């Protein structure tokens, strides 16, 4: 089956006064219809920029290269080369996105309801009344009590969880093919996070939306994702089906991440596995493995070239010259 979205060699560079920032480097991944892809990585690893690049939402003086073939039923186009107008007609319609901080993502001077109707009116020629009715339905769908009243509320009158629900309502209002959720629960409490995760999962099943879920919480990923992409220093260092990744991480960084989480069941006597050092500086164009600074298996080659993607098991692609299983540098076939 053809993937719904197929991103190839996506790179994004910001030109700033202090120099160029190489925020995303050579990211490739596929997204199938209806599946959930989790993108994990630490702060600054390029998760958000990757997604914003796809939607053309980055500021001026940004350079995006690569391709992103979006192929829902009926048509096919490259998100990175279509016209602005065409992209605009997809945004919020076929592809929508929700952000981490729901309060700051909602217009403070517009009612929540009006913000939901906007996409409907823009993309689906709803009239005012129809849009209103639909918006109330959507509010109800995302679990907001008294939706007809809450329609007229302003964002600041909602609690954190409710705002995120409202954001979800906006995002799914046009029943998109892809929903990108950029750390939607990071700002929320554990108990509220559980509510939102639950809600998204339910809506995804009901509506058959493909979800890209960005997070740095490996716990959330475990329960939510079909496949996982791990990002480090702007590169997708590993992509794998979720079980495979947790059982058998192919990249030293992935392994490090998993080791850094204490397990509830585990004993407190064990030391946590920590990755020494700090994330890389993105001001230099990467010419070698970005993780080399911190990698305990680093050897000469790591400093000389960028590792290509090695398929180490079905569906598991790793960008690393070191073969963890064999405990030797990888040999080229």
């Amino acid at each position, binding site marked *: 089956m053809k993937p719904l979205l197929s991103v190839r060699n996506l790179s994004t560079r910001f030109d700033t006064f202090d120099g160029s920032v190489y925020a995303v480097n050579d990211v490739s991944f596929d997204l199938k219809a209806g599946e959930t892809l989790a993108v994990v990585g630490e702060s600054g690893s390029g998760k958000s920029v990757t997604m*914003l690049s796809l*939607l053309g*939402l980055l500021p001026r003086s940004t350079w995006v290269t690569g391709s992103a073939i979006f192929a829902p039923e009926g048509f096919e186009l490259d998100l990175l080369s279509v016209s602005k107008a065409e992209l*605009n*007609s*997809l*945004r*919020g*319609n076929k592809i*929508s*996105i929700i*952000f981490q*901080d729901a309060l*700051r*993502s*909602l*217009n*403070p*001077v*517009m009612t929540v309801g009006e913000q939901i109707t*906007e*996409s409907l009116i*823009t*993309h689906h020629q709803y009239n005012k009344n129809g849009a209103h009715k639909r918006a109330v339905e959507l509010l109800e769908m995302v679990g907001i009590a008294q939706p007809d009243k809450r329609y007229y509320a*302003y964002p*600041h*009158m909602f609690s954190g969880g409710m705002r995120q629900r409202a*954001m979800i309502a*906006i995002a799914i209002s046009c029943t998109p093919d892809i929903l990108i959720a950029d750390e939607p629960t990071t700002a929320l409490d554990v108990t509220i996070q559980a509510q939102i995760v639950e809600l998204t999962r339910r809506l995804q099943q009901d509506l058959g939306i493909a979800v890209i879920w960005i997070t740095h919480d490996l716990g959330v990923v475990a329960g939510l994702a079909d496949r996982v992409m791990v990002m480090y220093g702007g590169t997708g260092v590993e992509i794998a089906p979720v079980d495979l990744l947790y059982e058998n991480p192919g990249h030293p960084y992935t392994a490090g991440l998993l080791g850094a989480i204490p397990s509830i069941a585990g004993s407190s006597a064990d030391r946590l596995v920590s990755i020494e050092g700090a994330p890389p500086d993105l001001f230099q164009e990467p010419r070698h493995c970005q993780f080399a600074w911190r990698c305990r298996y680093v050897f000469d080659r790591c400093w000389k070239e960028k590792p290509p993607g090695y398929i180490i098991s079905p569906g598991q692609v790793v960008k690393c010259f070191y073969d963890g299983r064999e405990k030797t540098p990888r040999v080229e076939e």
Partner: protein
Amino acid sequence: MLRYLLSRLISSAALLLGVLFLVFMLLHLTGDPVSLMVSRYASPEDIEALREELGFNRPLLVQFGDFLSGAFQGDFGSSFRYRQPAMDLVLQRIPATIELASVALLMAILMGVTIGILGGSNPNTILDSIARGIGLLGQTIPTFWLGLILIIIFSLRLGWFPSFGRETFTFLGLTLPDQSIVLPAFALSLFTTGQLARFTRSAVMEVMNEDYVTTARSKGLKKKRIYFKYILKNSAIPLISIIGVQFSYLLSGSIYIETIFSWPGLGSLLAEAVGTRDFFLVQATAFFTSLVVIGLHLLTDLVYVLVDPRIRYR
């Protein structure tokens, strides 16, 4: 909401009281006004008698008390020079000044906000530099100098506008100024235009970086909608609170502009009253100017509350 209103009202009243006190004290520091009031030929006894009559030889606080109770009854004393109740003189002049300041404010808003938006939404472009330049220029050209230059160019050389005075016409029962207001209002407005351009520019720049604007773009909304409903509406909020302050600048600036353009408003009255140290008249002028300013502050606060839903339900 009501409570907010009430507390704003009370603090405004307190503010006014403070203003009265300040004006009163400052004036009394200037020395004795009586000697100014009498004729060139008056004898010392006459002066003493007048001083007695007007009560200037009593303790300051008592005088202040008197002054306050008078003020509450709308009695600000008589202008020495004009021999008329100070309040009448002031009331007569207030409309012209408010008219001038309002038109200037309107001009400033039209020009300043437009310039600010153009600059702010295209940061670091030529357009932005021009916008910043105009903004700065407005803030650095001395107001009265600008006024004179305008007279020379547009009145003397080109003859497009009258150089002085306030002419009016009546329309739908309203007395409105004719083109005679153009030059003075423009000269007066330029400073505020500059300020507003700057504020707008930075407000727009700030709003443009807000997540909700990115969200709006991610919804695939039309550019126009994003501009009006997201960027403008949100940048307007900080601007509202500035407008009160700007109006107060405009009222202040009218001291120069009204003198130059012979605009019959409070500013020229004040310049005159200060020059002749017309005790009660200065007091009344300063008080009513402050009253207008404070009133406007109150008004902008209320508008603020209406426009920004975040405050409304406090």
